[in-house]
């Protein structure tokens, strides 16, 4: 089975038939829509969000169609017993990869650019080679490195040694193949980096999987760096901002902060009310300080959570049927968006 195929099955398994197949596609390609972002959270699939970014829709559809034909997917889009057995080694890979596209897709890219360029630059300076072509062309990363070097001054070689130790430590904690990928992706004064395809060839693995493992390794590095202030890797992190919101939800948030109501925002932005509702759901899930109490009375929230827990489902229709008529779909979605975080926390501590 190919990496893509395994990922599709895992995504469909996670969605439990409560979403359309297309939702799995959007999840795997990391679509920046409120619905997909919320799905990733509800179904605890942040590790699949953007896992196969280059997958195209026709290809996705032909793969699922063949799974249906072979009976690997049952009606309703849930993997059957045979498929479930086949994907279990892949589930282990996902579990161990440390990938979290939901949280780190953008910050991860930037973090890696900084680390890669910093290592290339320091290694050239250390080996007294002054001329080189930066392997990272991103202007922001280049300026960041420039600023850092100026700030460190003569201390930069100490910084380099520390960075080396930190990298060595981090790579030791990774899986062997992930350590290999990171070490071979990087460029130094004498050693040029490899492309993903070249690494895939060396490891005799698929390019897509190498790509996933690579990002997983970067995300693991970030998670570690976040908890270790004072390290060089911690300095490579970006601080500030609400990177998780879609641009359009960000705008809606601006309006909320100005004191506009949901209807008022829809009018001001000339968007459908349902679109603004999507944004509210996204914001509720993202911003902890955003209270939904004025939108959903606390006792209704309580009821929704209770029913969701007892039915063990996120299927909105099933929930709605069990609740009073005044619990709207919007209220349910808002509550689940807020609650998702809570249940996830519980899961984590139970591990």
């Amino acid at each position, binding site marked *: 089975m190919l990496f893509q195929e395994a990922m599709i099955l895992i995504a469909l398994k996670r969605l439990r038939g409560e979403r359309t197949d297309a939702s799995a596609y959007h999840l795997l390609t990391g679509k920046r829509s409120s619905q997909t972002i919320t799905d990733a959270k509800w179904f605890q699939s942040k590790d699949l969000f953007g896992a196969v970014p280059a997958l195209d829709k026709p290809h996705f559809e032909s793969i699922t169609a063949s799974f249906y034909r072979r009976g690997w997917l049952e009606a309703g889009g849930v993997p059957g017993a045979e498929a479930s057995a086949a994907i279990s080694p892949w589930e282990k890979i996902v579990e161990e990869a440390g990938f979290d596209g939901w949280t780190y897709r953008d910050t991860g890219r930037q973090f890696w650019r900084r680390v890669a360029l910093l290592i290339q630059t320091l290694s050239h300076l250390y080996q007294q080679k002054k001329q080189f072509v930066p*392997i990272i062309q991103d202007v922001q990363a280049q300026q960041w490195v420039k600023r850092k070097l100026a700030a460190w001054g003569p201390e930069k070689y100490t910084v380099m040694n520390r960075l080396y130790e930190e990298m060595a430590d981090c790579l030791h904690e990774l899986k062997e193949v992930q350590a290999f990928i990171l070490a071979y992706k990087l460029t130094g004064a004498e050693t040029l980096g490899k492309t993903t395809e070249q690494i895939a060839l060396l490891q005799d693995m698929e390019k897509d999987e190498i790509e996933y493992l690579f990002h997983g390794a970067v995300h693991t590095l970030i998670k570690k760096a976040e908890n270790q202030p004072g390290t060089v890797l911690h300095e490579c992190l970006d601080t500030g901002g609400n990177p998780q919101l879609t641009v359009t939800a960000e705008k809606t948030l601006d309006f909320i902060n100005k004191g506009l109501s949901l209807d008022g925002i829809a009018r001001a932005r000339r968007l459908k009310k349902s679109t603004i509702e999507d944004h509210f759901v996204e914001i509720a899930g993202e911003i902890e300080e955003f209270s939904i109490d004025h939108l959903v009375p606390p006792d209704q929230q309580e009821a929704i959570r209770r029913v969701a827990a007892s039915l063990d489902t996120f299927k909105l229709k099933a929930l709605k049927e069990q609740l009073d008529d005044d619990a709207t779909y919007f209220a349910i979605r808002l509550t689940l968006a807020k609650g998702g975080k809570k249940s996830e926390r519980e899961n984590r501590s139970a591990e």
Partner: protein
Amino acid sequence: MSEKTEALNKYFGFPSLHDYQEPIVDALLADTDTLAVLPTGSGKSICFQLPALMKSGLTIIVSPLLSLMDNQLQELRAKHIKTAAAYNSFMSPEEKSRVLSRLSSLKLLYISPEALSLPFIVERLKTIQVSMMVVDEAHCISQWGHEFRTDYLKIGPVRQALGRPCMAAFTATATPEVQMDIKKQLQMDAPAEYIHSVDRENIALFVRQCTGEREKKKEMIRLVQEAPGPGLVYVSSRKRCEELKALLQKETSHRVEAYHGGLENETRLMIQQQFLHGDLDVVVCTNSFGMGLNKADVEFVLHYHFPKDAESYIQEIGRAGRDGRQAWAAVLYLEDDIIIPQMLMEAELPPVNELGSALETAAGSSRAEITEELINRMGWTETAARFLAYYLEKYPEKSRGGLLEELEKQVQQRWFEKQKKLKAMIQWLENSEACRRRLLLQVFGEALMKRPEPCCDMCGHRIPFREHQRAEKEKETAPWETRLQELFFGRERAKHE
């Protein structure tokens, strides 16, 4: 030490200029208009970079290709020359405004011809001192040239608007009629001319007649395997690029990669660097590779598909043997391949039967909108769309009928020129009697003065493969711990620990 030598030393770390570079630098320092036809890889950029750095004020360098700009900028940055920047449509608005805000502190500004013709850019340039204008790949200005770019025709008027600064035109390939055209369009008065032969004596020339795709592939594998490299294999499309790369990886012992416009930026840069540093032996590429790439030790350039004219051919094989060592170029010629340059040429011109509806679409729109419409809605190539947009702008008051007539005439004319050039290329490929070098030079109005040895297959010479150096190829699979040490501290220290 002269001021010139001092500057050369300071900026580039070279002790002296080549004999042919010296007079060009002198001419430009003396503000003399200059036309230079120099073979590729002969260090032409330093001829204008050095005077630009020495003069007060800004030098504008018009460059047709993003990759060319990038390469030169990278080289300058690597030399810690920070007073250079680029301006083109691929940059973000922030990057653009950053460049414009520091115009007065810049010495070199690389700019695309499209950007240079924007009125607000010209206005900005008027507020600072422009001491020199350089046109790189100047053959693009001539409709007799092999890559006519309508935007190049606006450089002359911009020069006028900026108070006629000194003008320098550089190209590697220009037939005598193209040279005339360059001087005229750029309004150069009695320029100093430095015309070098297009002949590269150390590149031996070969053509292999093939009867089918299978034979071509076999021949390619044989030649590539026998040559130690480094080498380039030119093909016409991204798809074929990948296909032949896979074939060569499988069938030869070389380290082979593909390079084409479909790859991610980072991957492209990586492959270019790997080739430059000797981590790769062969790159299978489309003609987007190698523009401005300075690798001195390339052994061969193999054309799996031949280019559309002799000028492109000269330019592409010019990437071999820049260090002066013996090198070779070979074309695998299959008669059926003629369809490839034909289609390419067709796509570069507006389809005559669509001109009418294109004019309808264009009515009342701005230039940028027109080009976009034509590309997206009518499926034209960018070159074809630009062609139309240019003539619309040139004849604003012509009636629709008159315009249509003019356009048809222009398209026919261009088509005719292109066909003529392609025919010359085919004739050269199919030639089975005369010296290939002599024939190639003829296209550029040159006579062969001295026949090198080896010269070409027609002169009875064989491909001068270089000796294989049985140096151990890099062990790719060092454990990551070693690799990480190497990255930071270099191989030596990594070895000791």
